[in-house]
């Protein structure tokens, strides 16, 4: 695994974590250091072990082996002082349906030992920030799904934790709420110098929110680095995807060779020729022309920027959605 060597005295440190559910190894020898004040995205497909890792960090799940330390001290699920430093937002909506928005926030604040006056002020600020201040006296059960998700998120922030763990924070959010939540988390972490670990299988979410991205698959950590560095790993510039229709082996090879004549970094992924190079748009007419001249029929042609999904494919040979 590359990219984690430079983290000295990390705020959160995972060392050789293992967790098994029967025959399934959910987390496999996972070691990772998370820096103070950074937003780290755990990127991987469903079942990669992201949620299991998060649950172990917040003490809800016991690792089979390995260590978890927060500022050098082992995380003890029975130690209230340690737990008070961690905030957790689960993937599913976890609210008391018969409590109002304000009541839930104040209640969870009291449970964390936040003084009532401070809790009340902070709850008001949080409701304001996520656009729920007018719904403060509405029962959680009567809120829309998107509003419940926003409330679910700020439930983990009432006690102003040093470390915030977000499990798929944008799942189920409408585009407007997604932007709201994304901006809020980034602002909160930056202004308060807080550390955030989020899990996602959405490369766009990981790319936009994270300072660093850790790519996980089958419980193993594959790569950790900044999104930019990871994408650079795959080559600078753009990605061109040319979907082929009714192609035979010989003509595909000829078409691929024709593309490589202009863009050396080109490969066949399924029935798609994928080419990577800077400023591909200027080469687009010639590339498609070469493919057609090789006797191939072209379906869809897509030109986009290099993404984390490309990184994931190169590491695993699979797409994130597969």
């Amino acid at each position, binding site marked *: 695994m590359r990219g984690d060597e430079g983290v000295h005295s990390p705020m959160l440190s995972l060392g050789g974590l293992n967790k098994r559910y029967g025959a399934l190894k959910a987390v496999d020898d996972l070691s990772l250091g998370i820096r103070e004040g950074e937003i780290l995205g755990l990127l991987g497909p469903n079942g990669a072990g992201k949620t299991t890792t998060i649950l172990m960090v917040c003490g*809800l799940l016991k690792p089979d082996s390995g260590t978890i330390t927060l500022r050098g001290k082992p995380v003890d699920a*029975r130690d209230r002082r340690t737990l008070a430093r*961690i905030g*957790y937002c*689960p993937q599913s909506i976890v609210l008391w349906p018969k409590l109002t928005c304000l009541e839930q926030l104040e209640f969870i604040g009291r449970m*964390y030992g936040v003084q009532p006056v401070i809790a009340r002020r902070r709850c008001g600020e949080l409701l304001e920030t996520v656009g729920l201040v007018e719904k403060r006296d509405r029962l959680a059960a009567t809120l829309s799904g998107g509003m419940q998700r926003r409330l679910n998120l700020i439930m983990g922030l009432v006690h102003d934790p040093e470390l915030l763990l977000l499990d798929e924070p944008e799942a189920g959010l409408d585009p407007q709420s997604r932007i709201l939540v994304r901006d809020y988390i980034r602002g909160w972490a930056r202004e308060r110098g807080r550390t955030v670990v989020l899990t996602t299988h959405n490369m766009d979410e990981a790319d936009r929110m994270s300072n660093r991205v850790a790519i996980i698959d089958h419980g193993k950590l594959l790569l950790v680095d900044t999104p930019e560095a990871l994408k650079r790993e795959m080559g600078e510039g753009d990605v061109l995807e040319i979907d082929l229709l009714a192609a035979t082996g010989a003509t595909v090879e000829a078409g691929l060779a024709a593309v490589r004549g202009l863009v050396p970094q080109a490969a066949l992924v399924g029935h798609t020729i994928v080419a990577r190079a800077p400023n591909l748009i200027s080469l687009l007419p010639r590339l498609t022309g070469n493919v057609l001249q090789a006797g191939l029929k072209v379906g869809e042609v897509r030109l986009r920027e290099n993404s984390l999904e490309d990184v994931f494919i190169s590491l695993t040979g699979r797409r994130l959605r597969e």
Partner: protein
Amino acid sequence: MVVSLIPLFLFMYWSFVGGGSTSYKVLALNEDRGECALLGSQRSCASEVIGALDSITYRTKDRLLHVREVTSRQAGEAILRENRAAAMVVFPEGFSQAASSGLQPATVTIVGDPNNPYYTVAAVTINATLDEFAWKAVGLERPVVAEERMLGGSGGRTEFETYTPGLLVAAVTLILFSVAISISREVEYGTIRRLVMTGASSTSFLGGITGVYTLVGLITVLLAYGVATALGFRSLGPIWVGILVSVLTSVASIGLGLVTACFSRTVARAAVIANFPLLLVLFFSNAMFPLPGARLFAVGQRVIHLQDVLPQTHAVVALNKVFSLGLGLREVTFEMAALVVLAFAYFMAGTWLFRRMHMRAN
């Protein structure tokens, strides 16, 4: 809903039984012909006995038996089979003649189902009345007179008063459903995880639930006694002792609810599993009917039975002592102590199990 359930239940029961003493329905088949010369009556001896049966009353002047004449044995047995009467007394055609001649005993048949809990009282009363008639007929004084003396004021209790303590115990026990469901809801919704993350202990979480439901139990019991009193229920002993026993019973039932919740991850499952302790309590605590005790050991003069592990066993005894026998706090000390110990034991067991099954990282 929990609070209003018991008063509503009491009102429904009162609507069925009314405020009077227990009355036993007896059928009479009178095939007797002739006059009862022994008593100098123009009516038959059977009619005289039937009249005597129908006029027996409690001290409260409420009738003990309601006698209804039937025209055939088949008709009477059909009514008995449907449990619409406790017993049937059959007077044969020659009853008056046999009773008057004194040459042969006059035979009367009592028909009934001993599985019917009312049959025994009805049959004993019919027998006693026939016996009284026989002594009166032969004109002799009884050589032996049995005097019946009721404990405390139990002889004057109405049916509503007799069954109200048992109903209260059974109804208070239902609180275990509410407790089990409310805790299981936290597990099902995942909110228990939020609480675990705050460092809340199982003792504080379950203690909070117990506190809330103890208050609910107290309000419920006070309301239930208020309604029962308004409907004619009288306690022969200090009613506050009865209320205290009821509240302790509700606390012990909360403990049973905690244990039930430990085995449930969903509300639906809790509602199903809670039936087990409920049935156990209702059938083995003597709340519904008496059971022979399964002896475990003895502490001094007191024998401890298997069903003594059920709080309701002690509640039934204590409430009967207070309400029907007019006894006070001193006489129910053992039962109260047992209720406190059991409530504590169930709470501790529930807390320990809940921590292991729902609040511990695994």
